[in-house]
């Protein structure tokens, strides 16, 4: 069994007036030591998925309406709060997008990391602070900087501290939510390389949430493309990058200005993502799709395995020709 397996996970935000279907029956799987890239636009449900795994969906208004999340063979959704607390931060930890707000400004960085270690491993204070220095060195920060405060670090360095903190307890799974979006390109390159290197050394699995297909190409083994709360395409790097099948995935690639080729005009996906509180009856992507047909508006497409390990949620994979 995989380290993490999500089956039919559905998360809704319920307000007085409406039900927002943030995550709508998704299936995901991460094997030990592998990285899964979760790609999608703002509001696609990426972060909600991550919060769902950690049991941190804000309730109210968030409700996990169905599905299973197996971590090391155990269903997290059925586990007790105390069990989840033990797993969170210890076996699964998370890195947030903004390193500025993830650190407490009045505590020295070394102490912040040591605190996490002491909390989860129950070791002594001196052991924990020795370990925290070790962690800082692992992410490329000199030991003497452990007594400094967060504001003395630059953005890239702060994100390294956050990563050190997340890795302090040697988690089995690291969830990284847009870890480099707030960083400059050259710093992003440094942080990504460090993360890739650490992943191999510590054999950590990773769920990388991003909107940047370039980062996915560099760091991931598998890719899931998310759109309006659903996984519309799932496969290995080669499946997604060499043989994208879903019109949304194809549209995403067409929207990115290329560095390799000269394109005069981009081919954007027309329109907007549907309102998650008011999803269409049929395919969620139907409105913006170039190969939609009557059936798309009527019934939701099935999630089909088009080749081993490559799943697509589209009824018109052959360009709608069969329908004519």
């Amino acid at each position, binding site marked *: 069994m995989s380290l993490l397996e999500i089956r039919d996970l559905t998360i809704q935000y319920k307000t007085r007036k409406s039900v927002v279907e943030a995550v709508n029956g998704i299936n995901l799987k991460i094997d030990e030591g592998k990285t899964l890239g979760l790609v999608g*636009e*703002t509001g696609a449900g990426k972060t909600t998925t991550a919060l769902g795994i950690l049991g941190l969906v804000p309730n109210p208004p968030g409700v996990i309406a169905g599905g299973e999340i197996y971590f090391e063979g155990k269903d997290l959704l059925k586990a007790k709060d105390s069990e989840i607390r033990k797993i969170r931060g210890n076996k699964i930890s998370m890195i947030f997008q903004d390193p500025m707000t993830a650190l407490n400004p009045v505590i020295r960085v070394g102490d912040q990391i040591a605190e996490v270690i002491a909390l989860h491993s129950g070791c002594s204070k001196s052991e924990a602070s020795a370990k925290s220095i070790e962690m800082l060195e692992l992410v490329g920060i000199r030991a003497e900087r452990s007594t400094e405060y967060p504001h003395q670090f*630059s*953005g*890239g*360095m702060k994100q390294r501290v956050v990563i050190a903190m997340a890795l302090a307890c040697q988690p089995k799974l690291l969830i990284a939510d847009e870890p480099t979006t707030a960083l*400059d*390109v*050259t*710093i*992003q*390159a*440094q942080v*990504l*390389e460090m993360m890739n290197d650490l992943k191999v050394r510590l054999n950590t699995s990773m769920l990388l949430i991003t*909107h*940047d*297909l*370039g*980062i*996915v*190409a*560099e760091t991931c083994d598998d890719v899931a493309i998310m759109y309006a709360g659903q996984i519309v395409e799932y496969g290995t*790097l*080669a499946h997604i*990058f*060499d043989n994208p099948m879903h019109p949304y995935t194809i*549209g*995403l*690639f*067409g*929207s*990115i*200005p*290329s*560095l*390799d080729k*000269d*394109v005069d*005009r*981009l*081919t*954007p*996906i*027309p329109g*907007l993502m549907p309102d998650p509180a008011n999803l269409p009856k049929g395919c969620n992507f139907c409105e913006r799709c170039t190969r939609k047909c009557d059936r798309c508006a009527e019934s939701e497409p099935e999630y089909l395995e088009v080749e081993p390990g490559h799943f697509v949620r589209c009824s018109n994979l052959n360009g709608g020709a069969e329908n004519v």
Partner: protein
Amino acid sequence: MSEILRVEHLKKFFDVPAGTLHAVDDVSFTIQEGQTLGVVGESGCGKSTLGRTVLKLIEPTSGKIFFEGRDITDISKHENRELRKKMQIIFQDPFSSLNPRFCVSDLIADPLKTFGMYGKKELEERVLEIMDLVGLSRRYAYSYPHELDGGRRQRIGIGRALALDPEFIVCDEPVSALDVSIQAQILNLLQDLQDKRKLTYIFVTHDLSVVKHISTDIMVMYIGVMVEKCPAKELFARPLHPYTKGLLSAIPVPNIHHEQKRVQLQGELSSPIDPAEECRFVKRCPYATDICRCKQPTYEEVTPGHFVSCHNVREINGL
């Protein structure tokens, strides 16, 4: 084709508690009518300050700015106000750049009302025309910005900039806050408008693939100084400055067959406050020599149309 903007030795310093911040330090360039100059650099390199100084929204510390042949460096408040009709700006953040209490038509009409142009009826017509131009459906005329998505909000910002029918627009990271699929829509819109209205752009961004797509020429900035400027294609085909090389190779490419030859830049940007008399890039440069540590390089045309400021540019590139 004629020159629309010429900037000579432009400097903008800010007094901050820690010293003098050199936001823009000796920048010179020209832009031809109808072209796009891309300005790229990492956060804090002074690219946004450059855009605002060129527009005279901020007073330069020294240097000269010529717009359509006229020196606009020292002009009266009144002349500066008149200049707004010709030079405009599009902002990065489609959330904070729109007054939340104005509806779409008010936002677009605001510049026109400022100058008291048009009567009530003409004003409405003009606003609707602009909404058509930027691809905003007329039914949103009385919507408020918070009711619209980021892409539409950015279209309002573009409409506002176009209302006065300017010739020159500084686009300050106009697509950075948008999702990729929306980003492409806005980039196409900006290109269409440029063709239709013969607009000249300065396109400020940190996103290299976007700048390559939209620019005629590209200028790379690093801590207030320009390190390299040349035609867009040339920059990506033959970057000469070591910083540009590092920057280009740091971009994650969405192609799994892309050959990565990464020139990893170590360290981070040094402080722009009271910089020492040395090359600004020296601490991160893999090719640094003694001269780099004691003298700032000057800006020179290394090959035709390709300007670089680096002491060792010829040695590094075998020219």
